[in-house]
């Protein structure tokens, strides 16, 4: 099965992406010539410290901070770099999960409205059961549809965040520090959920984090980002066990405890 996957076209492919900010007369290259590919059923973890450019990379792929150069392919099809230039079908293919979903929701909206809006806008069929189906997909009861964000627990909120990201039935999920703010008990639930979705929906996941123990659980491949560049990448076991770059070794050594063996 792994062989068949390896030969298939990647669901997400970025080539030579660069993002430059101009601030106070200074040009800052936040992402410098990054290339990556994520296949169906695969998790590519991008690790690095704050300021390494990993979150900018996520926003660049989404087209929210359009790269000034490079190419992007979704499921083999080349797509415009700016989200505003992408068709609805192209926009549906990417879903995004944020660190703190609670803060990303409108506090006055009910869960039903939080979910129905992207369902409608992304051209899915917003039939009566659509929002409930999404909740079901993330292991939540339809009874929560009437609740508002502050009436949910942290774990429920993050599940709704994932449900919302799934609203357009995406092929690629981009998770930016999606479990970093969660307590261990909730973090375990969300990681199990992502592992399930990966298999059941055949998603490709780009998982951006600074947490090495989470990476060791979830990632198939790892890309290490430093000063806007991917300085090392490879299968998770290779990067974790035999890192080639000094920077990767520093990053791994600073994890608070040796990574637990499964």
């Amino acid at each position, binding site marked *: 099965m792994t062989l068949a996957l390896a030969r298939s076209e990647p669901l997400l492919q970025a080539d030579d992406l660069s993002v430059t900010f101009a601030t106070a007369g200074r040009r800052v290259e936040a992402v410098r010539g990054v290339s990556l590919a994520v296949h169906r059923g695969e998790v590519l973890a991008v690790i690095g*410290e*704050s300021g390494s450019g990993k979150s900018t990379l996520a926003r660049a792929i989404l087209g929210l901070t359009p790269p000034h150069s490079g190419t992007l392919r979704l499921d083999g099809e080349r797509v415009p770099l700016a989200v505003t230039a992408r068709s609805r079908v192209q926009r549906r293919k990417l879903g995004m999960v944020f660190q703190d979903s609670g803060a990303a929701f409108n506090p006055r909206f009910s869960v039903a409205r939080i979910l129905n809006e992207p369902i409608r806008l992304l051209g899915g069929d917003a039939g009566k059961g659509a929002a409930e189906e999404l909740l079901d997909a993330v292991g939540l009861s339809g009874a929560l549809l009437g609740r508002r964000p502050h009436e949910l*627990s*942290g*774990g429920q909120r993050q599940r709704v965040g994932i449900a919302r990201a799934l609203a357009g039935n995406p092929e690629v999920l981009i998770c930016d520090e999606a479990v970093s703010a969660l*307590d*261990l*008990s909730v*973090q*375990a*639930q969300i*990681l*199990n959920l992502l*592992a399930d979705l990966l*298999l059941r929906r055949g998603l490709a996941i780009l998982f951006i984090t*600074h947490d*090495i*123990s*989470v990476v*060791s*659980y*979830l990632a198939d491949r790892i890309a290490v980002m430093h000063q806007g560049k991917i300085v090392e990448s490879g299968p*998770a*076991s290779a990067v*974790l066990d035999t890192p080639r770059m000094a920077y990767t070794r*520093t*990053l791994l*050594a*600073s*994890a*608070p*405890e040796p*990574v*637990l*063996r*499964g």
Partner: protein
Amino acid sequence: MNAAPVLSVRDLNVGVRSARGEVDAVRGLDLDVARGETLALVGESGCGKSLTALALAGLLPDGARIRSGRIVLGGVSIEGLPERRLRRLRGQRVGMVFQDPMAALNPVLTIGEQIVEAIRAHRSVSRAQARSDAESLLARVRLREGAQLLQAFPHQLSGGMRQRILIAIAIANRPDMLIADEPTTALDATVQAEILALLDELRRDSGMALVLITHDLGLVSRWADRIAVMYAGRAVETRSAATLADAAHPYTRALLAARPRRRPLRGPRQRLAEITGRVPLPGEVISGCAFADRCAAMTALCRRQAPETQRLGDAGVSCHHPFAPRREVALP
């Protein structure tokens, strides 16, 4: 452990104002901290660990207050002390470091002004003396070019440097105890390790006690001597950090099992052990054990009666059905 504890807390209750009136967010907490030791206070958000820290440091926000309980700080009971003496006692004996150094520093004052202010708040020394003390404090937290740094504003420094400044301020009056509330959560992993190493070094050099508040169990085994696991406003298990893997309380065991572990080289990821349900909210009526709803070992007794703390080896455990300590099996 025979030395008089720096801090002794008995049956502490901290109330917070809520829509339903005043409710207890810390309920009957017992805690001891010995001189020179590092105690990790661990638990999920909402378990009351930060509120406990604020109560001990005398920094409770409006709407929160100590309702009852006994706090003995360096041999002095704070009960009934007039507010001014109490503030002085805490200022001298307890230092505190917070999660977000940017929020804790005043953005419009220089580093020097802030350190000098902290020194002079509790000691009557000249401005010049305080300034020279400030420079040596910066050296103690391993910041170089102190004279220049004193002129800097917080936004000109990195997150790690700002946290070192806060630590310098917290130890300015040589406290007996330093409380660090998630001191590295907002920092990068490489900086995290440096800050924890610094705190550990300061503890060893000065003999002060360190209370490390964290939700990160990974930090515990590396940096703490003892651990107190909090749940729903009380310490449900305290034990030596070295025996954390042998934890007796089902909640501690569940937290340990929920940690992400490395996936096997081949085959699918194994499911992580989840803890279903949630921490009871402050003020929620709890009959019996607060963890019962989420506990695999729950029985009718747990519903009926809150467990007392019992001694198991070196550990204190509040549970009717604790895990037995692991025994070496003697072969015949």
